[in-house]
């Protein structure tokens, strides 16, 4: 049976890793949502005309939409 000493040092290593990880995350530079959200909106707006699922392109330009009538199953 191992002494309690070995168990403790394993826990310490784990705890140290957690603290190191949290330090990395806490040190990150963050930006306000009002600014970042505006960028998300701008990206959508800038690309909306080139989004076929959004604009809905005609059967003639969408290879998946063929002009055959659908078969009813």
């Amino acid at each position, binding site marked *: 049976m191992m002494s309690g000493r070995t168990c403790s040092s394993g826990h310490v290593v784990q705890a140290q890793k957690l603290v190191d990880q949290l330090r990395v995350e*806490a040190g990150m530079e963050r930006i306000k949502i009002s600014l970042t959200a505006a960028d998300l909106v701008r990206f959508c707006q800038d690309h909306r005309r080139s989004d076929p699922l959004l604009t809905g392109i005609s059967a003639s330009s969408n290879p998946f*939409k063929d002009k055959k009538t659908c078969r009813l199953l």
Partner: protein
Amino acid sequence: MRSPLTPEMATQEVQLNETLAHLKTESETLKTKLEEERAKLHDVELHQVAEKVEGLGQFVMKTRRTLKGHGNKVLCMDWCKDKRRIVSSSQDGKVIVWDAFTTNKEHAVTMPCTWVMACAYAPSGCAVACGGLDNKCSVYPLSLDKNENLAAKKKSVAMHTNYLSACSFTNSDMQILTSSGDGTCALWDVESGQLLQSFHGHAADVLCLDLAPSETGNTFVSGGCDKKANVWDMRSGQCIQSFETHESDINSVRYYPSGDAFASGSDDATCRLYDLRADREVAIYSKESIIFGVSSVDFSLSGRLLFGGYNDYTINVWDVLKGTRVSILFGHENRVSTLRVSPDGTAFCTGSWDHTLRIWA
């Protein structure tokens, strides 16, 4: 029998316990600080910023193709960069390559295991990767000769100690990123099978991953059974951001097309959007009437639409900016297990436990 504690050992044990207590206090302090920092930036909601954006009209999306051929649940699919070929994998151990325009099967491989949970198309279109309960990720070069036995050229690349849940080539055929039930993600060299980097940090099975769009740099996001979504630096192996707001397993993660955010889908029946620069969740896509888990999510090309495949057999289409549902699609006769928008955004494909794949447009 336990050996008696010497005075030296006793002192060491006391010191270790003190260190442990000190570290615990520090981690609590850091966690509180993180929460405070994130809260400071929460000056507005995404849908408020999007108030002036035009609402979306009615969407008419239908099944345009049904791909039949799997003998059991379809678990995963991926598009080829040529925008017409698709690879899919199934519980029955089969991996099939389809021409989605014609619905013809071009290749089929039988894996030595059942539950092939992951498959991916190589950027060149010349190979596919797959794996599952075999704990491996294998690469099969696709031959132009339909009679050639693909299994003969199989290359074993990744080895995990539990099931393979997801795989993706990086921007070339040379490297593959994997996630596993063993709680880790890993980056592999395809040619040598060498492990290039491993990613530790999830506390349970990792279920999904997605690579950042190439312009954004070398990061990827993973989601797991520990309810966490982690963003990783591919070169250092370091977890650079972590998000824990879901209430259950995260089954799917997908980057917003600009690379500044990512969406997730979870067993808690919600999809969420996380803004990477604000370092927080900025939207939840949910309805009281939606109570079944989300298995897979993907964005339309502009990022305005988020498609979610659900365990109640439906696909819900969300307005990413306004947070509302714009459409619900029916057709599958069992869980939707996988969903991907085509590379040119003209359609999306779903795979289901009903053994079929459907192309929607």
